[in-house]
């Protein structure tokens, strides 16, 4: 099985680290094939940050992701740019306080989480990316939670280890509860106009 995912948001939200943690979990702790790429061009400076990951049971041949199965967005700009690329029926995971949905999300399985708020409750806004990794594990099952937990431990400075593990567990728990309620879907485009038309 081959899963393509993209995580995107503002620079500084830890988009690259979150993707790296998931890739490390799959490659090192699940012994699967994982290939991560990130954008390095002028578009990667300032505003939008984005990284992509392919996780597969076979060697990864084509390195780039153009039609992700899973998109995680933590900013409106990232949503606007990348939501149209998600495969029909794919997962759209959003930071629900930062992203307003529109018809671009039509046909996708949408799950929202107030990751920034949850991170602030834990005491540090910067762990929102790790909350998102837990959330992604719970909702999509793309990478195993135990593997990701180990990768989180290995990927953050020792003094922030406990905080990040709490963040991971928080995202995982929130996702598991939300999963029981099922995804939000946008079916009728008339009710949700495009952002530019609002």
């Amino acid at each position, binding site marked *: 099985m081959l899963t393509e995912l993209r995580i995107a948001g503002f620079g500084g939200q830890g988009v690259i680290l979150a993707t*790296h943690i998931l*890739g*490390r979990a799959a*490659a*090192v702790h699940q012994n699967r*094939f*994982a*290939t*991560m*790429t*990130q954008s*390095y*061009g002028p578009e990667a400076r300032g505003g939008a940050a984005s990284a992509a990951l392919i996780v597969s049971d076979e*060697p*990864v*041949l*084509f*390195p*780039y992701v153009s039609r992700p199965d899973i998109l995680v967005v933590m900013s409106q700009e990232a949503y606007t740019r990348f939501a149209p690329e998600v495969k029909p029926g794919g997962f759209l995971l959003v930071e629900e306080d930062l992203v307003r949905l529109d018809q671009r999300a039509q046909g996708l399985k949408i799950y929202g989480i107030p990751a920034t708020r949850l991170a602030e409750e834990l005491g540090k806004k910067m762990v929102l990316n790790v909350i998102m990794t837990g959330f992604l594990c719970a909702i999509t099952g793309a990478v195993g939670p135990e593997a990701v937990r180990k990768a989180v431990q290995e990927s953050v400075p020792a003094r922030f280890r406990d905080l990040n593990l709490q963040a991971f567990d928080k995202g995982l728990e929130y996702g598991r509860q939300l999963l029981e309620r099922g995804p939000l879907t946008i079916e009728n485009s008339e009710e949700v106009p495009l952002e530019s038309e609002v």
Partner: protein
Amino acid sequence: MHADPRTVLTGTHFINGDAACCEGALAAGARYAAGYPITPSTEIVERFAARAPEVGGLFIQMEDEIASSIVIQGMVWGGQKAFTVTSGPGFSLMMEHIGLAAMTETPVVFVDVQRGGPSTGLPTLPSQGDMMQARFGSHGDYAVIALSPNSPQECFDLTIKAFNLAEEFRVPVMFMMDECMGHMTEKVVIPPADQIEVRPRRHTTRPPGQFRPYEPGPDLVPEMAHAGEGHKIYVTGLTHDRRGYPSLNAAAQRELVTRLLEKIRRAAERLVMVETDQIEGAEVVVVSYGITSRVALRAVQEARARGIKVGTLRLICVWPFPEKLIRELARKVKALVMPELNMGQVVIELERCAAGQCKVIGVPHPGGTVHDPAEILEAIERGAQ
């Protein structure tokens, strides 16, 4: 000889090709590097600058690439293993000193993380546009070895190989990565130090006075002595005799230049490094190298699903080119297909070796991304007709 355990980061990592190349250089015994950092190769020396001092090494940021490519040769003649790292624009500036390294038989490694060219081109996007430059970029006749990795794992493994080959043949070795490879993150397994073979310098055992720095050994490669050890050594880019002294005449030129080419030519069979799959009975064989070999495999799988007998041949060592192998292969297939991230470079060599025995179909690409596998599939189908 094995790698020094102090420098080997044994374990399973999730790192990019640039980081893996740096770890390979350290494992191979490089303690010194110089460079003028340039995207997309910067991460290699950024990491080296942090790691090397832990083991008594050093990275020097030079004023430009011309200086970088000569100071590493000073490091080597001072007894160290050294390398430099660059991308297209810097590689162009290094050409003069690649010739010097070939002429003085200085074992040194040049890493080129290729980006779109010509000129400043596409700093953050891939190409394989420097392949001919790697072979022929400096003036005069000389030979080099050029390796092309296709994964971060190979960026580690083959960097070690590059250093070992440089020592074995006393040639500059070109390590031809590309932006995609450098910035792609995958699993990299670094073995224990005692499982990493490291080739020591071919240091002379002769006492001072009885040593001639350019006296060829049985494999045409001379032994080496370092500055400051009591030997009289004179290292010059001028045509020199066996003592190393300038000898500016046709006879000395013939002896020296012939040997510089011949030491690699004689070893050509041993230097064939390819990975093949299903070439027996194939109608079409896709020949590729570096990142393109992975993308091509997707097209090959699709072609096989459509019933075409396709084999693959991946060049791990691009220079010297596996001439004999290609010549024999060309006799057996309908077509050789070569996709590469340039407008047709190594395919010229492929055509030369195929010598009209089969169709040779290039799949050129100006770079900036990798091929669409559909373009390669189309060429395979054309070749099978």
